[in-house]
Structure formats: C-alpha cells, structure tokens
C-alpha cells in the first residue's frame, strides 16, 4: 500500500514525542551492548569473551526491557498504536530503510560470506563476532560457535526481549500474552536449546544426530529428508529412529489433527520460529503488509508455486538416494514414486469429491498444484529416460531451493525487509508449510474468525493491522466469517477492533462460511428476502 508518510506541518521542533529520561538511559544501555557486538564484528579480540558476551547480550536485554517498561507501563492498559504512522521506523521512513538495509546486509553476509563474521574455515579457530559466541556454544553443545549459532542466539534473544515488550503492550489481552509466552517457549526450548543438547549427544560414538528442530516440520524443514539427515537419524539407534518417525508423524498425523481443531494458528502464531520473530520483533511493522487485491493474487500464485517446488524437490532428493533392488530394502525408487503419486492423488480426489461445492479460488490453486506434481511424477517414472536426468538434477534442484527459498526468501527478504514490506512477507508469500496448513485450514478446520452481527463500522483497523494482508474489514462489514487460508490466527484484528466485532473461534464444521448476506440489523423476513433476491 502506498501510504505517504504523515508530516507535521509545525515548524517549531516538536518536543511532544521526545524520549523521557528513563528511555534515554535505556537507549544508552542498549546501544553500549550493541557497540560491543559491533567491536567484535570488526575483529576486536576480546581477552575475556565470556564477560564480553554476557555484557553485550545483558546490556541489550536490559536496555530493551527498560525501554518497553517506560513505553507501556506509564499508560493505562489498552491498544497502543498512537503515532505508528508518524514514526519514521514504522511508516517506511528513513529509519525503516536504514534498518531494512542493515538487516538485509547482515543476512547476505550470514548466508553467503560467514568468513566476514569470523567463521573459522577448515579447522581454524573462529575470530571476531563468531569467536565472541564461542563460550556460550561450548557451554551448550561443547563445540565452537558457527555463524548459525550466532544467528540462532540473536534470533532467540530477539524473540525473548521483544516478546516481553509485546506482552507489556498487550497486557490487557490474555490471548496475546499466552500466545507470546508460547512462541518464546518454543523458540528457546525447541529451536535453540534442544538441538544444541542433541549435538552434545553426538559426542558419544553411537549417536550421529543431524541438527533437528523438532517443531520445524517438513516442508518448512526442507532438509529433513536429505541423505545426511536421514542417515544421521538411522545411524543413531532408537532415539534417531524415534525422531525420524516423529518427524513423519507430525507431517501426516499430528499437524493435520491440530489444524483441524484449531486452524493453522496453533503452528504459525503459537509455535513456529519464523512466526515467533514476526510476532515479537516484527510486531511494529505489521501494518505495512499490502492489502491490495493484486498482492493477494500474487500471494496465491507464489505460495502454491513454492509448495509445488518443495514437494518435487524433496521427492527428487529422496528418489536420488533410494535403490532399485527390492530384495535389499522395501522402499525402492519405484515404490516410493508410486507411493508419493498415490498419496497426492488421494488428497486431490478427496478434495474434489468432498469440497467441490465450497472450493474457493485458493483451494483450486492448491488442488491444481497437487495435480501438476502428480502428473510430473508419473511422467518421470514411466518415461524412464528422464530418470537419469532427474537423478542428476536433484542436487541442483536441492541447492537451488536452499538458496532461493531457504536463504534469500525466508531470511534476506522475509526478515530483512520487515520494515518495508511488513513482518509476515515470508509467511505470506513463500512459506511452503503455510501453504500446506492453509490448505488444511481452508478445507477442514473448525477455526474461523466470526463477526459480531451488524456492529462493524468499517473503520479499517482490522485490515490495517492484519500482518497477512487480509482485508478483514471486507468480511466484517458483510457479517461474514473469515476462513481465509492465509490467516495465521494472531488475533490482532480482534484486539484492535474498537467495537468488539471480531472473535477467533473453533466451532463445528457446519456453516463455517455463512456468506448469506443478511441485512445486518434490518428486521426482514429472511425467506421473503432470499426469494426476492433472485429478481
């Protein structure tokens, strides 16, 4: 949305919105913490790394917490969006562009030039920023830090400190508080600590566990079925096998069941790490998502293309390391390919049979995507000639996916562009998991956002603050339930509504899409009205 920044026309310098003393102190503390990180970045070798790291992260944390405290606890509880569109940072002003470019630059260096952060190559010790994090890494996993450890630590820290800020901001809203505690918990425990502890297990000879964040399931975790990953699981005894089985169960059983009961929000805004960062550190940017119809069209195409790509890629990767000989192992290339084809056909058929009457455009795209994959799989298998091609290409496909989707889209654009495109760009346009869950949500979930009769005044707060770019108002003013596949159930639309019109609900599957266009508040004989509508 092309929103011109609002400018005060006053010529006198405004002291209206200046920082309080407490806030100035908080900024000072936080910046000192950042300064230590910056020094490390420029290869300053700290003699006391543990102290340096603790000081740096400690000061950043203290500064942020103190600032949040001053910002919110001095005011009464309630929605705190005052001046969001006047601040440079949150209205695509200069500060936003600077932050966006710095973040994007950080991601580029992180993904493609880790040596600049001090990543030691071929056995050499780390230097600079990454060396600063060595003590923490040794403490947790017994290994030196890597660029991913540095990133993971900062990422987790961001979710924790901005999560605290979010909890203060919404301290009148228990849904928001619980949800934030949940993403903080899953990030700290499941995404950060557990994988590090698992790495520590690898010190014993019988374990060779791959890096595995057990809440991050395929297809978001696109490397789950890579050869190294599967080998790692299989070579790690019962624990490894259990983790692999859990991974598969979570794709096919656990996640569809939870989505049926609670919508995709159980994952996207209560568990997922990408969602966690978007909801906490990214919260000040949620109003920047585009609500244009054109953005919605782009979203539907892009997300399904990414999904198709990721299914084909994974299939190709698995296919490439399976054998032909059925006497050695039950899963051969043929059975695998037929199995995948059969499963997708089943999904496709069930959707068409049971949901043909309520197939929205989104679902059509989803079904079309599946159909394309199925066709591709069968063609590849039965033409035989393409098998070699497929085999060769799979590694290329895999690294292309890792580069374009895994790195550039999810990191560089998805997070680096928070201040420009909003906080859920990746979740909205690129996440293959969101596409899978969204399809499930649209097809068979008890979740919907209900609207409160005729009380909507079309003010547009809900649409403005929807991070997924859903035009919530368009539904609310018609009194329609919202069952959009992109909705991550963050609940902010309901929170910012000044008339209490929106509510996230789990209810029966019957009549979840009630687009019956009743004259809201008009006392009409409904049967008469319906009949007369046909003129």
């Amino acid at each position, binding site marked *: 949305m092309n929103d011109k920044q609002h400018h005060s026309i006053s010529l006198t310098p*405004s002291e209206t919105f200046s920082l309080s003393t407490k806030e100035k102190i908080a900024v000072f503390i936080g910046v000192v913490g950042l300064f230590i990180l910056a020094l490390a970045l420029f290869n300053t070798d700290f003699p006391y790394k543990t102290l340096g790291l603790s000081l740096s992260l400690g000061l950043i944390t203290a500064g942020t917490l103190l600032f949040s405290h001053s910002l919110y606890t001095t005011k*009464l509880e309630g929605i705190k969006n005052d001046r*969001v*569109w006047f601040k440079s940072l949150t209205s695509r002003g200069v500060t936003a562009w600077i932050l966006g470019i710095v973040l994007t630059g950080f991601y580029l260096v992180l993904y493609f030039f880790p040596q600049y952060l001090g990543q030691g190559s071929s056995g050499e010790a780390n230097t600079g920023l990454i060396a600063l994090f060595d003590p923490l890494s040794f403490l947790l996993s017994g290994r030196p830090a890597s660029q991913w450890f540095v990133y993971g630590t900062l990422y987790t820290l961001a979710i924790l400190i901005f999560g605290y800020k979010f909890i203060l901001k919404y301290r009148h809203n228990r849904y928001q508080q619980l949800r934030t505690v949940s993403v903080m918990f899953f990030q700290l425990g499941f995404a950060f600590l557990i994988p590090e502890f698992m790495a520590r297990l690898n010190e014993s000879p019988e374990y060779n566990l791959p890096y595995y964040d057990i809440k991050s399931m395929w297809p978001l975790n696109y490397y789950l079925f890579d050869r190294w990953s599967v080998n790692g699981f299989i070579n790690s005894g019962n624990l490894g096998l259990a983790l692999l089985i859990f991974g598969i169960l979570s794709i096919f059983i656990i996640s569809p069941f939870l989505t049926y009961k609670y919508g995709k929000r159980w994952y996207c805004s209560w568990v997922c790490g990408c969602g966690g960062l978007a909801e906490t550190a990214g919260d000040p940017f949620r109003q920047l998502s585009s609500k244009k119809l054109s953005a919605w069209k782009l979203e539907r195409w892009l997300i399904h293309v990414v999904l198709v790509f990721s299914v084909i890629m994974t299939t190709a990767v698995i296919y490439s390391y399976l054998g032909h000989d059925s006497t050695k192992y039950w899963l051969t290339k043929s059975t695998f390919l037929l199995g995948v084809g059969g499963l997708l056909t089943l999904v496709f058929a069930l959707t068409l049979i049971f949901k043909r009457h309520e197939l929205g455009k989104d679902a059509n795209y989803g079904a079309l995507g599946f159909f394309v994959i199925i066709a591709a799989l069968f063609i590849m298998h039965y033409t035989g000639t393409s098998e070699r091609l497929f085999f060769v290409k799979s590694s290329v496909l895999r690294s292309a996916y890792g580069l374009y989707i895994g790195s550039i889209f999810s990191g560089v654009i998805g997070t680096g562009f928070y201040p420009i495109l909003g906080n859920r760009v990746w979740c909205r346009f690129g996440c293959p998991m969101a596409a899978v869950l969204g399809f499930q949500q649209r097809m068979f979930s008890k979740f919907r956002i209900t609207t409160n*009769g*005729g009380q909507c005044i079309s003010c547009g707060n809900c649409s403005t603050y929807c991070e997924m770019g859903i035009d919530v108002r368009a539904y609310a003013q018609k009194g329609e339930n919202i069952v959009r596949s992109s909705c991550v159930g963050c609940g902010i639309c309901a*929170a910012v509504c000044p008339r*209490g019109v929106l509510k996230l609900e789990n209810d029966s599957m019957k009549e979840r899409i009630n687009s019956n266009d009743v004259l809201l508040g008009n006392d009409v004989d409904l049967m008469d009205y319906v009949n007369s509508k046909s003129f």
Partner: protein
Amino acid sequence: MEEHVVIIGNGIAGVTAARHIRKFSNKKITIISSETEYFFSRTALMYIYMGHMTFKHTQPYENWFWEKNRIALKKAFVEKVESDTKTLYFENGETLNYDKLIIATGSKPNKFGWPGQDLEGVMGLYHKQDLDLLEKYAPDNQSCKRAVIVGGGLIGIELAEMLNSRNIPVTFLVREQSFWNGILPQGESDMINRHIKNHHIDLRLGTNLKEIVSDENGQVKSVIIEETGEEIPCNVVGLTAGVSPNINFVKDSDIETNKGIKVNRFLETNIPDIYAIGDCAEQIEPVGQRPPVEAVWYTGRMMGEALAQTICGNRMAYNPGHWFNSAKFLDIEYQTYGWVHGKKGKPDYEKHFHWKHDDDTKCITVAYHENTNQFLGINTFGIRMRHETFDKWLTEKRDVHFVINHLAEANFDPEFYKTYEGDILSAYNQTLQTV
C-alpha cells in the same frame, strides 16, 4: 437507456445504496460529493489523527473499484434541486439530470450561536475538512498549548482521545452533571467520568460555554465559562454538541423538510423519485422508541440497503430490528442491545440491574420490566457481547432471570479472557435477596 440514479453524498448510506443498486441492477449510478473524491469511513477519521491509520486505510475500496462497478463519482457541491425538471444545479454552474434522486448528505456539527463560534481554530469533528483543520491548528502540543472541547457525547470523547494521543492538554466542557448521562444510566456515566479523568483530561461537568475569545488575527485565544466567568486560554476549540441534518441546499426546493428531510417508512420524500437516507432523513413515523432522526452509522447502512431494494423494484420499508449501538470511551468498549435508558425518557416500568467490576473499567446494566420481568436491553462496558444472541433473546421476550443466568452464552470476548458471568450472577442473586 437504463434510468439514472443520482446519489448526493458518499457516506455510508449513499455508498451502500449505490453498491446494492449495482448488485441488483444495471442502472446508471452517479455519486456526488464535495467532501472527498472517494468513499472513506468517517468513523475512522480519529485514527488518522492518532496515527493508527493513514487516510488510504480508511477507504474500504481501492480506487479502481468504482469504475469497475460502473459507479460514476463526481466531486461537486449541489446548490439546488429542481424537482419539476429533475435537475441538480451545482455551485460551479453545471447541471445534472436524474431519474431517481437519493439524498444522503449526512449531518453537520451543531452550533448554538456562541459568540466566536466561527473563529479560526474552532471546528467540529465530522467531515474530512474538520480533520484537516485540526491537523492545521493542533499538530502538536507546541502549536496548540491547550484545546477545549464543548459538548459531551461520543464525538466529544473521541476528540479528547485524539488530542490526548498527541499530548495536547484538553479541557472538556460538559453541560450535563455527568458524562452522557442523558443516555447512560448513572453508574456507567460515573465510571466513564473517572476513566476520562484517569487519562489526565480536565473534565468540567455542569459547565457551559459563554463565549470564544479571538486574538488579533481572528484566531481562538481563549474560552470563557458561563458559570464561573473563568477564562481558559486555548488554541483550538472543538464543538461537539451534537449534529443536525445537512440539508440547507434543499430548503428552497419543493422537498418537505422539518429537522431533516421528511420521509415515510419507504424512505420516500413528498416528491416522487426523490428519497432521503441516513443522518439527513427524518422519519414521519419513527420506528418504535427510535428518534425520528437517527444519526447513527448502522442505520445509514440499513437505510441504504432497504432503499436499494425499493429502487430495484422490490419495494421494501426501512424496518430496523432491535436497537443496537457501540462506542469506545478511550480504552473502554461499550455495546448496547435493546433499550437501556439514562435519565432522559426512561419509562417508569423500566428497572435496572447494575454490576460493576472492582477495577472500575467493566460494568453492565440490564434493563427489565418492573412487572413482567421482561428483558428490555443491556449495556456492557469492557465486556464484549454477541449481537446475535441478544437479538434472539429480545425477540423471544426472555425474562431478566433467564438472561443473567445465560449470560455466558452471549460472551464475545477473546479466548482465555477472564469471565465475569459468575460474579454478575451472584451479585444479581444478592440484589434479589435484599429487595
């Protein structure tokens, strides 16, 4: 050639009528407005000033919507309506012919002849232009050291909240002894009084404006209070003492007016093919306990929907169901279903059960019939309630006992919120025992 429906006013009433006419027909549609080029949601004006939204966000439809749906937009000011020749005369000398005319020109802020009411820096809060003026005279607390708001009610408190968001000190002059107590029962009104003061707004109850004083440039310098003669220096004065129909341009026509443009239940005026909807319409026979002129957003929308049916050949009366409304007083949401009267116009048979939470931000009032115990209406503050449920209970004429016992079914608060139905029920049972 399809007939030409011309709509004056692009507020919610006019735009709803246009959209529904397009849904049901191929008629030629033109919407005229001198306020803005495109439809925006008036109710969201406050959020632009507060920085929650930009003006663009208040437009429910993207700009291509109108052309795509063949709704012509014309930015012009109608000066005169000539019903004999079915012609509109514009301020710039142009004219336009119509086959059917819908007048949906809304309201304008009331001015009661206060000295100085037309000075620079004095404004209402209704039109986009009022917001532009506020932005000009009250951009921050350096340019505007203090603002005075004259008149209680919903627009007044919204304006106070707006100015508060930019740390501009506000003095709020309310004629009544308690905020909005013509409408709200006393317990609720008292709670809102305290809530306003908690936001550091200088609320002056039982206070009238005597005059607005000008500086040497014709700009507001101060206001003088009637009762005490106190002079309050200020740079902006907000006039929010209600609104009245914006119908000056039809005064010389054959269209019959009183306070507003007089319409029957089919929203037809005394002239064939001319209709009036929304804030500017006055019902010759008011519906139930509703006032003849209903300056409420929802009724504008409902009238637009009903009239679109009539114009498309399915003659339909404006027939609103049970009364409902909502508002937000700073941080406290308010909803009402059915009728709960304040002091003004409260029938003798109407009795109230009132419950207030200790934190002083949540309360409810349930109105019921003294003799029959029939449930008449509910006001809720800080607790969201489900429209559909109360609509059903009002239709079913449930008694107050049933309503209080089943209150949980009507709760519309977000998940995991603390609920108060238990507290309310035990308070209710205690009241019964003491009575």
